[in-house]
């Protein structure tokens, strides 16, 4: 099926959809930053089962 012209619903909800998209993007960036901080902290430890694999 080919691409159809946009429904008026798409126009009406554009602002909302862009807002949700930006929030999800910000959430991903936040999780990345949090993960980086967590794994670079000095008290970070791998779980025991993973420790054996990496040694």
């Amino acid at each position: 099926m080919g691409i159809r012209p946009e429904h008026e619903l798409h126009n009406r909800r554009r602002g909302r959809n862009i807002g949700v998209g930006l929030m999800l993007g910000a959430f991903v960036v936040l999780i990345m930053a949090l993960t980086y901080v967590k794994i670079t902290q000095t008290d970070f430890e791998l779980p025991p089962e993973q420790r054996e694999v990496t040694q």
Partner: protein
Amino acid sequence: MTDITNTPTSEYDAQLGDYFALLKPRVMSLVVFTAFVGLLAAPVSVNPVIGFCAILFIAIGGGASGALNMWWDADIDAVMRRTRGRPIPSGRVQPGEALTLGVALSGLSVMMLALATNLLAGGMLLFTILFYAVFYTMWLKRLTPQNIVIGGAAGAFPPVIGWVAATGSFSVEAWLMFALIFMWTPPHFWALALFMRSDYDDAKVPMLTVTHGRPATRLHIFVYTVLLAALAIGTAFTAIGGIFYFAVALVLNAAFLLGAYRIWNRDEVMAEGDDYAEERKFFRLSLAYLFLHFGAILGEAALRTFGLGGW
């Protein structure tokens, strides 16, 4: 297979701002500020990213409980002048959407706070959401005139969660910050109930003004303010207090006590004569009162980083 063109559309599509309004942004600003103070007043250093995440997820958790509150209370919100413009009674958001948003954000915030900081902080946030949304909103708000006192406890948890997020444990200082908000809430809301005369009567919410009368409410405001003043000034002599906090608390509590005394010494004829000027003034002062007390605790924490503060 469903086609989006077959989706029934209402005349008004809720915008992001409408969903944001469900989170009670004004209450959320208090949650953010007090949690921030709790986090920074704790005697440990917190990584800025983790601190930011902690405050963000505490704020989202607070907002989620606000959305659940608005979902459950939509019927009484529609009756009260102060709340009838909220997203659900005004028809901008459907009740089911508010419930979904509240539950989803509750789960997200609790899980993320536990991951970002520690399990105890996540558990405390979950307890706070349940306390506010279930214990207060669904059960006690419409049952007892002490509803404001109990609701105040829910609003008092954020600095404790901030402290626990930083330290991983409870302490006396965290509970002092809890007590400060807990004791502040009743006089703050009862002053509001005095000048928003008919709202709670119309909604049949058993506010103290309705069940015990207005003179009893005035006395309650004064008694709570006396106890609050003792607590607020006493906090100056703990690990989160100091000379700076003491000076701020002394001035604020003198003004607050004077306001409460004036409210106690008035009757309805006098209050109606000046359109509840004293009650309105006291309500406005109460907002500055809490903000400045927590600001002073934050100030003491900042001074301590430079080797100052305390006694």
